[in-house]
């Protein structure tokens, strides 16, 4: 048997939390240095302020395989892709890559809003590792795929977000590496374009015989595209193999709350932590009121300008959001004063089943979506009319309140 195209051996990545947070300016570094000169001073405790985003991950990947990587937020999926893409260096272990690897961790890396569509195609293509000659050859194909012919000479800052994403994905889709690493890029764009992208990736993997590594929260996409799945949890590989088996294991995992009595808070980026994200009652009966409460902590004083609870179906399609922005825009958090907010969803209009809950937040330092922080189970309402309801999967996600005149 030939060599695997990628072999990953005992990869670990340790992040120093304290070091980056405490010495942001030279002054901090100098005062720290001076303090440790006089009277020893307090050193940040290394052991306490570091964590392993990845630990002891090993696997082999054969040429032509399409592999999905799934796991909760903070399970180490993105870190794994970053290490594979050489963006960040592993702390331990070794990876051997035998082929040209292109990574697509974001659509439109290097896009500049002031440049036209045409200019950005070249810029982005070169950044992704294509040569100018390759881009020139595929230019028409890229433009046709993105459906932006008329706007080629318009600065992309005037594009709609849909057009922007289409153009960005189109460039990436025409890369021809032997190994393609893709992170969650399909979470953007409209449904029709998402399907087109999935189709293109399927082509790449199945007909093109190339190797694809794909991270997604969209289980339907992972199941459609991948022949094998690696399931990550807290920086470690907990499962590797059959698609359905791993997806079911993962769906089982996300039913258990990450937070709650005794549980540790979950980091949401470098500053914010999630202390609590609860729904009561859970399980809830469809059509009844549902109370929610969120508590966010932080490791330094910061301000949230936006916050939303995101509700996803089991397969990762977004169903609804709870917009928790305050009219005055001020939600301050500091280590001693966590931010709490709670409320009630009236007559919960969801079809019975499991729902995955995430958060979107925008604080002074960064913003982002965080997936699978909790889950919500909705049980069937007791119906008064005589006809038995259709099965849940047949009824979609929403229970509408409507009258019919027969």
């Amino acid at each position: 048997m030939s060599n695997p195209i990628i072999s990953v051996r005992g990869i670990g990545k340790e992040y120093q939390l304290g070091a980056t947070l405490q010495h942001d300016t030279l002054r901090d570094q100098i005062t720290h240095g001076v303090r440790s000169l006089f009277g020893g001073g307090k050193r940040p405790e290394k052991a306490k302020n570091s964590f392993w985003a990845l630990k002891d991950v090993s696997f082999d990947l054969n040429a032509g395989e399409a592999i999905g990587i799934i796991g909760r937020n903070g399970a180490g999926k993105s870190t794994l892709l970053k290490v594979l893409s050489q963006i960040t260096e592993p702390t331990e272990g070794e990876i051997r890559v035998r082929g040209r690897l292109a990574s697509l961790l974001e659509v439109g890396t290097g896009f500049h809003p002031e440049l036209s569509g045409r200019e950005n195609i070249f810029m982005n293509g070169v950044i992704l590792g294509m040569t100018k000659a390759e881009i020139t050859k595929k230019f028409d194909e890229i433009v046709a795929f993105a459906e932006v012919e008329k706007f080629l000479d318009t600065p992309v800052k005037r594009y709609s977000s849909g057009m922007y994403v289409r153009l960005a994905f189109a460039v990436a889709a025409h890369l021809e590496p032997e190994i393609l690493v893709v992170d969650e890029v399909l979470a953007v764009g409209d449904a029709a374009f998402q399907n087109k992208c999935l189709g293109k990736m399927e082509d790449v993997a199945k007909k093109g015989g190339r190797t694809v590594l794909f991270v997604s929260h969209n289980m339907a996409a992972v199941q459609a595209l991948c022949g094998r799945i690696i399931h990550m949890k807290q920086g470690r590989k907990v499962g590797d193999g059959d698609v359905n088996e791993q997806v079911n294991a993962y769906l089982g995992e996300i039913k258990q709350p990450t937070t709650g009595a005794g549980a540790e808070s979950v980091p949401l980026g470098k500053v914010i932590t999630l202390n609590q994200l609860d729904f009561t009652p859970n399980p809830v009966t469809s059509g009844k009121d549902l109370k929610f409460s969120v508590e966010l902590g932080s490791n330094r004083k910061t301000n949230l300008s936006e916050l939303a609870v995101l509700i996803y179906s089991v397969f990762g399609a977004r169903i609804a959001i709870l917009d928790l922005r305050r009219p005055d825009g001020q939600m301050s958090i500091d280590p001693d004063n966590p931010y709490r907010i709670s409320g009630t969803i009236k007559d919960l209009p969801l079809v019975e089943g499991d729902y995955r809950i995430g958060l979107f937040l925008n604080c002074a330092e960064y913003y982002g979506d965080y997936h699978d922080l909790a889950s919500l189970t909705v049980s069937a309402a007791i119906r008064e009319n005589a006809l038995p309801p259709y099965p849940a999967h047949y009824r979609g996600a929403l229970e509408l309140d409507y009258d019919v005149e027969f």
Partner: protein
Amino acid sequence: MADAIEAKPALATAERVIKPKKGLISIDFAELWRYRELFVFLAWRDVLVRYKQTFLGIAWAVLQPLATVGIFTFIFGYVNKNAEQNGMTVFEYAVMCMAGMLPWQFFSNAMRESSNALVANAQMISKIYFPRLIVPSSAVLSGTVDFLVGAVIMGVMMAFAGTALRPHLFMLPLFFLVGFLAAFAIGLWLSALNVKYRDVKYVVPFLAQMGLLVSPVGFPASAIPEKYLFWYNLNPMVGVIDGFRWSIFGAKFEPYWPGFTVSLTVTLLLLVTGALFFRNSEKTFADVI
């Protein structure tokens, strides 16, 4: 599709090993050569973007240096009678100032752009791999366009002042190269430091402002007493500006060559240490930026 398959055998044999790097990290010139197109494209993007949605466009590249030259000529050359003392007309004095301003302006812009380049491209650095050295170097390259525009204006001024064209002019690109390397060397140090210490953004305007007054832009370097000239040339731009004046005026502005050697040595020293410092801080860029 066909090319991809054709290209496969050659590429498939190449095996890359990703593991923690230990010890002093050197510069991977082969890899830099593979990414040469990105180097040019990033500079091209900077140039395209720089004057978009401005009314005067690229004229900004010369307005500021021209105004400064005008003020220097008036104050030092005319009011302070430096022009007369050096046996020059006021126009010649303006050309002399411009010959100092041109490389200084390039250096100062290139230093500003390159020291900020990594932070300005933070998104790219945390999302894709390419040799990070390309970022500050292409920022310096993008300043060349402004420099060329300035050089055209310089030519016009020389014609106006009746400055003769001398064979020394062929040496000008060499002195420009030294200026380029000096800006790149400082850019390497400052951009890598800027990733971790945003203090750099306060240091750079200060360096640019002080440097303009301390470097021999508004006056000839011969105004400095000879016993200090050696030390004066520790500022690498002193050698570059002297070289520019010599290329334009010939023997009248013969540089103090031992001083020039000092400037050149400082430049090369900064360049080598800067590149090593940059390469060895590089692995934490994506985590810290």
